């Protein structure tokens, strides 16, 4: 590894923090360099170079998520313009598979982190709530891959899902109550009992990457 910022000590620190093994970090670093075209940071435009990403209906949100400061574990808000390798790794670490040796507390934290990532993706205006409009946005994007599905149908589904969420999260609502949006706690409630840890992960191989960009 000849790059300036992959010194073994840093590597180990990164490995500890993000949970990747050194081989995986190495490979991801190589990928990072590919994406950034040998720069130290990546910008949004760099993601346009990934051919397969174009067909992804929610690519906008995903790319956005990489730059979302809330995901980068900074206490601040808003969007970063560019991210370095460390940030890249941080985002990737949300998708690590669970390990056999995790205990209850670690599992729980893991799960919360993954769900928080999801939540930030849906909550585009950063106000801590997923409102109906944001939800609609997400659903429309999700279903935009299907060219035959009309917008109203997508909208209806979003509305229905929102109401379902409201019924799960809030349950009893007084006549004057208004359901403003899904907060993170509500979001957690929605996912209670559903096994997200086994669903939301990518297997990071220890072998070299295969796909490439333009």
């Amino acid at each position, binding site marked *: 590894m000849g790059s300036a910022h992959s010194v073994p000590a840093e590597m180990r620190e990164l490995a500890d923090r993000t949970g990747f093994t050194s081989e995986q970090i190495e490979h991801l670093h190589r990928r990072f360099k590919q994406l950034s075209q040998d720069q130290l940071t990546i910008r949004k435009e760099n993601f346009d170079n990934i051919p397969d990403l174009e067909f992804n209906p929610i690519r906008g949100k995903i790319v956005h998520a990489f730059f979302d400061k809330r995901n980068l574990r900074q206490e601040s808000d808003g969007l970063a313009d560019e991210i370095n390798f460390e940030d890249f790794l941080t985002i990737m670490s949300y998708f690590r598979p669970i390990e056999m040796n995790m205990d209850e507390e670690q599992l729980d934290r893991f799960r919360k982190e993954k769900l928080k990532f999801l939540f930030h993706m849906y909550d585009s205006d950063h106000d801590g709530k997923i409102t109906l409009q944001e939800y609609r946005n997400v659903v429309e994007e999700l279903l935009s891959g299907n060219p035959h599905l009309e917008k109203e149908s997508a909208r*209806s589904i979003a509305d229905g899902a929102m109401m379902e969420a409201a019924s799960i999260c809030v349950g009893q609502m007084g006549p004057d109550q208004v359901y403003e949006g899904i907060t993170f706690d509500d979001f957690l409630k929605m996912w209670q009992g559903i096994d997200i840890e086994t669903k939301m992960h990518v*297997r990071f191989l220890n072998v070299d990457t295969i796909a490439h960009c333009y």
Partner: protein
Amino acid sequence: IVGLRERVGFLLGLMALPVALGQRSSESPINSNQSQSFAIVSFEWDHVKDPYVITLWILVASLAKIVFQLSHKVTRVVPESALLIVLGLFLGGIVWAADHIASFALTPTVFFFYLLPPIVLDAGYFMPNRLFFGNLGSILLYAVIGTVWNAATTGLSLYGVYQTGIMGHLNSGLLDFLLFGSLIAAVDPVAVLAVFEEVHVNEVLFIIVFGESLLNDAVTVVLYNVFESFVTIGPENVTGTECVKGIVSFFVVSLGGTLVGIFFAFLLSFVSRFTKHVRIIEPGFVFIISYLSYLTAEMLSLSAILAITFCGICCQKYVKANISEQSSTTVRYTMKMMASGAETIIFMFLGISAVNPDIWTWNTAFILLTLVFISVYRVIGVVLQTWILNHYRMVQLEIIDQVVMSYGGLRGAVAFALVVLLDGDKVKDKNLFVSTTIIVVFFTVIFQGLTIKPLVQWLKVKKTEHREPKLNEKLHGRAFDHILSAIEDISGQIGHNYLRDKWSNFDRKFLSKVLMRRSVQKSRDQILNVFHELNLKDAISYVAEGERRGSLAFIRSPSTDNMVNVDFSTPRPSTVESSVSYLLREKAGPVCLDMQALEQRRKSIRDTEDTVAHHTLQQYLYKPRQEHKHLYSRHEIMHSEDEKQDKEIFHRTMRKRLESFKSTKLGINHSKKLNKIHKRDRGQKRRNSGVIPNGKIPSENPVQDFTLKEKGIDNPVFSADDDQSIYMKFSPWLSSEDTVVPSQRARVQIPYSPNNFRRLTPFRLSNKSIDSFLLADGPEDRPRSFLPESTHM
């Protein structure tokens, strides 16, 4: 209980009938006297003998099922397959005792050609594809390597023990033992299905064991054929080339079988695209073409099970999309019926065939050792393979899973059929093998079947979660898929999601265009399906609830009903069965308010409100079929325009729900007419003031919700009669634009009401920024509304 005994006695007596008849057939004189005069009636037994006996046996098997189901205590503990085997033994004993010949047996031909295909087709057609392909790696490993391992170790160990002389003298050499090993090694799909069905382990575990049992057929076929031919040509002639040929044949057989299956799946999907006008025979295509795939593979000496499995797996998506709802139901039920029937017959005949002292050869050591070896080696094999797999799997397989997998490796009728198929001249010890196989099969099915349920409970194996399909889950599941494949793309990996993504793109761009009907292509989306189902469920439960309260009789009154032309002249028995909800539930497909049947529920004298209810319901559910009952034709089914109504229901129900959502704030029941549609046990119930929505999950008893409702105004369904006039004036179901508008008061009072809620048909997004439910209502220029302008408190 007395009735039970009598019933059982009667049924058992009935079951003895085929036995008696079977005897009769063997005793009847070859020729009869030539009678001199014309016989008015004669007993033509020989004429009908074959189909009669077959039908009787099927009847017996089915009656047996009834008898078994009579006692829940027994069926909860003992798997049905075990009971059937015991019954078979019993019946075989009767035949034997009476006749001293074994006249009935499970012949391999009947088994392989008629009994096995329905079961495997049923498995393939209803296979959860995503789960299957997601775990395909593991399944293949167990199926191929596992079976080879089992066969080799069992055969070799038995041979080894034989060499030590414990078994006494046998006429078999190494190859014979290997042959035996290969046919006893395979896990049997029929047995696995029969037992696991009652155990309900979690889906990953089930799919691995079950997938293994299906896919190991290729291995079994190859090994069996290879060793059989080796035995035939003699051990001296087995050279290296023969072995190589054997290995090559494995690939040919398995891949060939799969390709045959895929080809026929393609053919079937393609054909189903054009069957719109022959709906009556639509279901037939599924069975015929699938069966053809089985036979073709069999003809080409490829793996027939693989062929029909993959035919079912590959065609399900397209066929289910293309054929009408009724055909889909027909296919489903017929398949299940045939599979279940075949399974019952198989197990029963396994029992009967066992009672055949001619074949019985007892060799304690051999039998005992076989049992021991297959169990032990299975455990070892599973453990080893799982250890390897866990390095590559995302969801690890734990010890408990491995225990269930080892224990669930049941042998069944396939092994039995294969062993009976052996050539007794070439394989000198055929009888010994047959006896051993029978014992092994009985042991696994009965003993392991009996004990697996308590074992699963004791080990606290994760069970399947039967959860209502939640829209959110589906949505987020979709989001996951996309996110994960994006991450895979970004990080440059090729993983499951990447592949799945690629496949679904390919499918959408090419395959679906060719194989799916144009009209269906757009509406075939998982999320839509869930949504649709939920809507239907709501509608059904709404009507059911209304019925329970005795107030929703759909009475046709001439003044208002100009939509339906139904002839009420035919009297029909008025039973509870013909209630609306029963009808609705019976229909797996689109809701059909058959006015004819509903008319029988005429209880209420409150014509007006019922008509109102009827009309309102009519808006949100399908328009009743016209003249359905009176057009009995073998070639035509009147069908409604599914697609348009799909969309209609969709939009309307959604809109209504949102109305109800809104109205919680109103504290008024202005939208009561609409809202009663929303009697959903899922949550949002429009409540009158003081009564709060109930956020319970769907499984709750809807009656509870209604009691809450009554605290407010009395049943909103029947309150305002002034709504009548409005209903009469505007025929909302005739209106082309679906407008729903809150009342004047609502509009003023509602703190929120996003414009978008009001209409779901084409409309533009409001210019205001809508970022929550808190939004003032829009302009009040609404052309029509069938909402009552007045409100009640």
